[in-house]
């Protein structure tokens, strides 16, 4: 059994969902996503027993491209993030009635397929293909099933697409350049290349553009809030929960090992940019009227911190970044889902039109509260583990970084609690707020359970990812 099984399963799942018909599409998608989770857990088991679950075969002879999927701890962790979130994301759609549900869920599964491919690929070209491929489904998901005025949505979505596409094209150019040097796209060979300082600089920049837009770092983030707002919540979850992590993962997997010297040279600038994003995102989030937009900016702030951890380029930074990626993936999905749950009942995303929900649904309020707290990295939640590790790594680089990055602790609490207060607390709302349904409850409980469990016992994840991060660090140093 190797990792291709996972890809095949999800691809078949997408096709099967497409042909299953609108009525049962969501269930079929759920089935396949749960199956994928099962398979990935089985793969994890095999991996931890030392079995080789990688896959490699010649794909194109000229230029020399291998269809190579390498599973190391880092990849598996990201794959598990994807396969764990996908069922939840699919399940969270149970409360919506999508037109053409079969297309919708097929696209969701297809996107999971592409993202898993991105996480696993160890051949630059294959990686790039999966990377781009993941853009297509989300484009359609946001375009067709999104909300709000169609023209504005189109504008936002196309901007997103072109913007991210633009960034990644430069990455492609860099890959081609590297291929000319190495004669292959294989990760191990590429990272072993001896590149001059100038070459590294430009390659680093090309990759940086791709990742800075995807992650996004300021000032490349302008697509984010609008798309998050306009996309259907499931799309937003896919984007914020997994797709952002693709950018961060890629920084670790590709950018840093490929151009370590350039990374070191530009380290301070980029960490500065990332941390500026932390502060800026938090501040902008303060005055957002739209719940999803607020969450989008909070996401901007959080990924800024993760990115800073990545570029800290030490053990703690990288490890913390990975932990925080996983934690943030879960929590942001949960938060967006909470927004969706409110929307289903109140048909609004404007915070000022909510309020007083807690009285009606204490259960929902508590779960939302826990998610909010996890998002502000309360100790005991998984997010704290990540955030602490990242901030610590920053402090070992430069104490100023840790202080600036640490403002997220204050500002994050500021805007999140402000949001929670106005959205949930206050006088009981006149409108009825039905209690959470079973499917909604499952999603919340799963996410919260995950966050709390690994908040106290992150050891399995740390042990999973550490060896591969060490390998990356060997190339970076």
């Amino acid at each position, binding site marked *: 059994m190797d990792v291709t099984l996972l890809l095949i399963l999800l691809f078949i799942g997408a096709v099967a969902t497409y042909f299953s018909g609108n009525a049962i599409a969501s269930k079929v998608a759920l089935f396949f996503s749960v199956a994928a989770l099962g398979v990935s857990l089985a793969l994890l088991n095999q991996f931890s027993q030392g079995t080789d679950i990688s896959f490699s075969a010649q*794909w*194109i*002879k*000229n*230029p020399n491209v291998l269809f190579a999927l390498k599973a190391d701890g880092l990849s598996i962790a990201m794959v598990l993030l994807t396969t764990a979130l996908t069922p939840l994301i699919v399940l969270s759609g149970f409360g919506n009635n999508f037109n053409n549900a079969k*297309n919708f869920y097929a696209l969701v599964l297809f996107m999971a397929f592409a993202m898993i491919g991105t996480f696993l690929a160890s051949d630059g*070209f294959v990686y*790039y*293909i*999966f990377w*781009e*491929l993941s*853009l*297509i489904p989300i*484009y*359609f998901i946001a*375009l*067709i099933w999104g909300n709000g005025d*169609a023209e504005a*949505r*189109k504008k936002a*979505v*196309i901007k997103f*697409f*072109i913007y991210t*596409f*633009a960034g990644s*094209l*430069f990455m*492609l*150019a860099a890959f*081609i*350049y590297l*291929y*000319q040097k190495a004669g292959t796209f294989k990760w191990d060979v590429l990272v072993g290349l001896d590149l001059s300082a100038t070459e590294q600089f430009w390659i680093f920049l090309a990759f940086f553009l791709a990742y800075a837009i995807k992650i996004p770092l300021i000032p490349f983030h302008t697509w984010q809030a609008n798309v998050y707002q306009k996309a259907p919540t499931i799309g937003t979850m896919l984007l914020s929960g997994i797709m952002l992590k693709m950018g961060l993962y890629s920084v670790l997997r590709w950018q840093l090992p490929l151009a370590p010297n350039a990374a070191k040279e530009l380290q301070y600038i980029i960490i500065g940019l990332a941390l500026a994003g932390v502060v800026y995102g938090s501040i902008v989030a303060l005055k957002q009227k739209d719940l999803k937009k607020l969450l989008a900016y909070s996401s901007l702030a959080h990924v800024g911190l993760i990115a800073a951890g990545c570029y800290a380029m030490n053990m703690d930074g990288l490890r913390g970044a990975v932990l925080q990626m996983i934690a943030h993936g879960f929590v942001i999905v949960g938060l967006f889902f909470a927004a969706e749950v409110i929307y289903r009942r109140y048909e609004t995303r404007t915070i000022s039109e909510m309020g007083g929900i807690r009285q009606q649904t204490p259960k929902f309020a508590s779960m939302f509260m826990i998610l909010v707290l996890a998002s502000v990295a309360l100790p005991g939640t998984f997010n704290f583990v990540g955030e602490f590790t990242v901030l610590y790594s920053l402090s070992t680089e430069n104490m100023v970084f840790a202080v600036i990055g640490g403002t997220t602790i204050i500002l994050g609490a500021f805007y999140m609690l402000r949001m929670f207060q106005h959205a949930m607390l206050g006088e009981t709302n006149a409108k009825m707020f039905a209690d959470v349904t079973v499917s909604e409850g499952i999603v919340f409980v799963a996410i919260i359970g995950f966050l709390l469990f690994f908040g106290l016992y992150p050891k399995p994840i740390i042990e999973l990812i550490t060896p591969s991060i060490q390998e990356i660090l060997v190339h970076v140093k």
Partner: protein
Amino acid sequence: MNTLIAIAVLGVIVLLAEIFNLRKAIIPVTLAGLIATLGLTVTEFGVTESHYNNMIKVNNFTVAFSSLFIVLTIFLIALSADFYQERASKISDFVSIKLFLLAGSVSMVSFGNLAMFFLGIEVLSIALYILAGSDRLNVKSNEAGMKYFLMGSFASGIILFGIALVYGAVGSFDMDMIYEASNSATTVDWFYIGVSMITVGMLFKIATVPFHFWAPDVYEGAPTLTTATMSTLAKVTAMATFFKLNMAMNGNMKFEYELVIVIVSIASMTVGNIMALRQNNIKRMLAFSGISHAGFMVMALLNLQNATGSLFYYTAAYGLAGIAAFTVVIYVCKGKDNENIENFNGLGKRNPLMAGILTASLLSMAGIPIFSGFFAKFFLLNQVLNAGWLVLVIAGVINSMIAVYYYFKVVSAMYTKEATEEPAKVPFEFYIVAVLAIGLNIAIGLFPSALMDLF
């Protein structure tokens, strides 16, 4: 050689069929004949020989491109039955002209002598003039025909002038002699004036800046199936020929010449893409997109030794995507007096399959992975960088993202806007053509080696 004869004979058979009142048999017979010819052509793969005093040369290049042309023609002719429904009495003319056009194409890639090249390009051009102006009661079609004719003849004059100069310098029309001369130090300098004039003429045929102005007008005015022919078969043919000519005449290309190619390439990509942004007529838009693709394709000239495979792949990807796209365009715009993008509103609901096919083909043209258009661009850029032209790679990359905008404009029209009318019935052969074309496109995307390793 056999291919050329077979195609010409097939053309004559079609004409005869009309005389014997076998009109209904024309298209099936043609398709069968073309498929047989395709088989015949493919069997010649791996053979390198020349026929009739080196008039026709057969090698892998020839066979590969001829097969591609035949495939494209099969699709185009399959669409003819429905497209020319209103003018059934002339179906034999249309089909035979297309077949002769194909013969011209084949001779253009398999010539061993400039005479064959010139005749081939003229057969192709004249056939296209006719097809462009064939809708005789339509003012637009007239205008397109006239514009194309005037500019095309002008370009033919330039090419002819170039050929004359080359002949003057070499004393022969034979490609082998010319190749030798091009590599010889004693060759008279005007040889290169001739070469550059031929180059300009070919740049006109593939519609690159600044020789591109005809393309949008003619594409828009011509009947849609003709536009499809022009933008797929004709452009691909011209590009292959151009490449072949350069291999023969420009073996050791000068830096200045390369620079001209680079500038033309960048200008074409940029102008094509930027102009396409504001187009509301899909045929016009595809014309500008074709211009930008032409800009991409001429990149292949910068790496003449290695880029054959890449160019072939690109032309195949582009041609197949074009066929698929135009199939949908023909279906959607049937019975409409324009081809505006509004016609595509709500196609995603009216006819998901057709919308999906158009989406896929546009994505392929935009260079989104897994569709072969992406691989095509990638392979070409790879070759270009191999030749050391980083600036062109960057220009190509920037242009790729501009292009996304207008392709996606159509896509989002299909999926977000509400449909204005009831879905029309799709002729069976349209489905077959569109699905086959896009299927082939994706298939070569999944297995690029199938084409790349031919050379």
